[in-house]
């Protein structure tokens, strides 16, 4: 029973990702896509957590954390790029 609940949840996360992905495809603006991407990243975290449970392994807990970190870093990069063009500045004075 538990396993089927988990599987359903995983599928639901898949659905969520698919729906969000539509936003990436249709845009219309780039920030929309960034937001969607960020959401997918966060959803992937959940999905991975469920997969860990399903596979009964702890090997993916690191992946969860790393995914969180990287989704964060990518979002920062994209928004900084939008805002300033240069995502890393020599000396901040803006």
């Amino acid at each position, binding site marked *: 029973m538990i396993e089927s*609940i988990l599987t359903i949840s995983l599928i639901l996360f898949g659905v969520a990702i698919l729906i969000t992905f539509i936003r990436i495809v249709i845009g219309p603006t780039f920030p*929309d896509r960034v937001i969607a991407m960020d959401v997918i990243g966060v959803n992937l*975290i959940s999905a991975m*957590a469920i997969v860990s449970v399903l596979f009964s392994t702890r090997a993916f807990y690191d992946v969860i954390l790393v995914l969180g970190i990287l989704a964060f870093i990518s979002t920062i990069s994209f928004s900084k790029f939008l805002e300033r063009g240069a995502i890393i500045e020599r000396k901040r004075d803006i």
Partner: protein
Amino acid sequence: MNENVTFELIGAILILLGSIISVISAIGIIRFYDIYTRAHAATKTTTLAVLITLVGVFIYVWLGEGYMSVRLMLGIVFVFITAPVSGHLVLRAAYRANVKMADETAEDELRPVLFKESSEKKEQEREDQ
């Protein structure tokens, strides 16, 4: 043993709840009109979804399997503090990149402040000409 199954079930239900919320928030991301309102769906609901799910997993493995995962806990904290920052940054960038707000927008106190200098400069130029 029975107790474990109960906890596992609690965990699983939390996970299911998380996944449902996640689907809803995904719908929100499609349904809202502009980037600014979509961000509301993203930063709040999705965060909630992932938090519930992770807590569910945490409970599942902690109380069900007897393993308290520091990494999971860290993950929860991490999402908690970074999700709003992401929302903030993207919206700021969008606004500064001149992404239009929806027509329904009632008031905007930021525009005059943010684009004051540039509009002044434009006027200056017009006068110079």
